């Protein structure tokens, strides 16, 4: 009789504790915590009216995000990730707790919290340049000045050849780059990103992750990033906020031990794998891995011997 998960054991032994940080990484986190707090989330909660009384989507979430920190939020579907980011953006109002930006409470949407949505939400009737100019024009900047600045942002995301194109002429990755440029042009204190690369194919997504890290490195902006892709969270984040569902609560806040600058080949580094293992355990609880996977109640509908696997 073979004991089931034995074969994984050696790898688990090799993997370091995900909480162990190299001196460089530890020093980085120490410096990061010295930076001023940009966004303070204090006991944030949101209830919705349901058919059978109120439903709690989010409960008692507290977190401090420091200047130029990159925070990712992951969690199983239905854990209130989108509700969370909408509360931060001011597009929804919390039923308890509060959000402070630079010490001032958030009461509604504003340009100090730029947002990038999964569905791009570019204005289809405006060219790329006019889209990026939108936030600047809302601040009352002169058109020529706004255009000059917008073109710099378009340059930064590498789309200067498409400055006069319309959104429908762009691929998904390009659209999302325009959306990022548009949000950054309004010079937000924090950039809120709601599964921005969720609709992209794997290759484009990897490119966009690299682009985003590059932008973050060069622009004075704090990033709050929601994703359901565990690797994406580890690759991008300084800290990962893991939510659990029903109600959405903080399960753990993980300081990612993978050193910076991040590269794609780090996905096989021990720190990365250790973090990945931890996230897997949190998001997909163990119960499922041991028990035999649930079978569908299907009877054979093919001829005997006509097997595909």
């Amino acid at each position, binding site marked *: 009789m073979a004991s089931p998960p034995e074969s994984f054991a050696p790898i688990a032994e090799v993997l370091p504790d995900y909480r162990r940080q190299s001196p460089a990484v530890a020093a980085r986190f120490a410096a990061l915590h010295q930076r001023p707090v940009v966004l303070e989330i204090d006991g944030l909660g949101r209830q919705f009216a349901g058919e059978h009384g109120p439903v709690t989507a989010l409960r008692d979430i507290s977190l401090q995000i420091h200047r130029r920190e990159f925070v990712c939020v992951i969690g199983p579907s239905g854990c209130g990730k989108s509700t969370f980011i909408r509360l931060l*953006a001011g597009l929804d109002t919390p039923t308890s707790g509060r959000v402070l930006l630079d010490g001032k409470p958030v009461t509604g949407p*504003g*340009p100090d919290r730029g947002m990038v949505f999964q569905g791009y939400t570019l204005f*289809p009737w405006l060219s790329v*340049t006019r889209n990026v100019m*939108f936030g600047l024009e*809302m601040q009352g900047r002169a058109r020529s000045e706004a255009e000059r600045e917008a073109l710099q942002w378009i340059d930064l995301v590498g789309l200067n050849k498409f400055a*006069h194109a319309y959104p*429908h002429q762009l691929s998904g990755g390009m659209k999302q780059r325009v959306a990022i440029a548009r949000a950054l042009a309004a010079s937000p204190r924090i950039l*809120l990103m709601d599964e921005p690369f969720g609709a992209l194919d794997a290759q484009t997504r990897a490119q966009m992750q690299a682009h985003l890290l590059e932008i973050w490195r060069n622009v004075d902006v704090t990033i709050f990033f929601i994703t359901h892709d565990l690797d994406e969270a580890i690759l991008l984040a300084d800290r990962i906020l893991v939510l659990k569902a029903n109600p959405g609560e903080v399960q753990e806040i993980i300081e990612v031990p993978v050193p910076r600058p991040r590269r794609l080949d780090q996905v096989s580094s021990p720190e990365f794998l250790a973090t990945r293992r931890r996230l897997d355990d949190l998001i997909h609880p163990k119960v499922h891995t041991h028990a035999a996977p649930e079978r569908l109640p299907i009877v054979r509908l093919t001829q005997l011997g006509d097997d595909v696997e």
Partner: protein
Amino acid sequence: MSRWLSIRKDLTPGLHRRFGVLAFLIPLATWSLFSYVPWLWHPMVRVTDPAGVSWIKPGQILPREDFAKLVEKQAALAAPTPTGTPANPLYFPPPHAVGRALYTAFTTEPVLKGDKWLHQAIFASIRTIFWGFALACLVGVPLGVFCGASPAIARLTEPFVDFIRYMPAPAFGALMVAIFGIHVAPKISIIFIGVFFPLVLVVATTVRRADLSLVEAAQTLGAKPRALVFRVLVPASLPDLYNDLRLLLGSAWTYLIVAEVVGVSSGISFFINQQAKYRNFDNVYAAIVIIGAIGFGTDQALAWLGQRLFAWKNPRPSRLRRFFGRLTGAPGAARPADASRNAGEPVSTF
């Protein structure tokens, strides 16, 4: 055959064009068949030779049974029998007669002094429609946009507008004459009533259908309510609003005919009624066809214009849009040739 009848699959451009022409040719052919093939329908007889019967004249049209009885009676008396050819009723003129009337209606002088020429009648009708429709848009579009943008304004406005919408506009005829007199003003006001109330509701619904996520995106970019309405909601729903107005312009024409008989009858409906009185049914048809042609023509022209004005909604290169782009100084003139939907991403380096 299966290619023609596949469900919800676009026709090839050739078929699209040909079927569009057929849509007109089939009714015309049916009309021609019933007009020119003597054994199809033709319930009347046109007398060619009265053969001494005093009360009929050559060219007179009478029902087939009556004519048959007359022939029988004459035959019984051993008198010469009248002859005739199968004919259709007067109210069913053949295509060529209507075709001729389309020309002659413009060239014949009005029977009564003071009556209008056809082109004058048409012009009067177009003017009535224009003012009624323009005034309804001028008030209705902004009101509808505000209803679509603000639930408070919508709730304060729409229930009452909905209530009035169910009152048929012609019912206001007598009232409008009492208020505005008997000339063109009550006619314009009836078209206004007929168009305005549905317009407010349709515009509000269209604006409400605009993508909410665009509004939210604009809010996170610092847009205030004013900008949300005029810089986001209005441009986002403009192509659909344009089509709404096109449809309502069509309904304005249906109110025209009723509006024109209110007070002093005028315009194209006066012409139609007058010609029907003289039993010039070919002229009646000609006038109706002209109304159809004007309506259809404007609608097609507006559709063509709309497709080019709102190219972002219906992606297709357009010279007209580029022209407007240059006029307003908006970028859009230059289109990157390589910006096709599936253009490859520039390769990034880590």
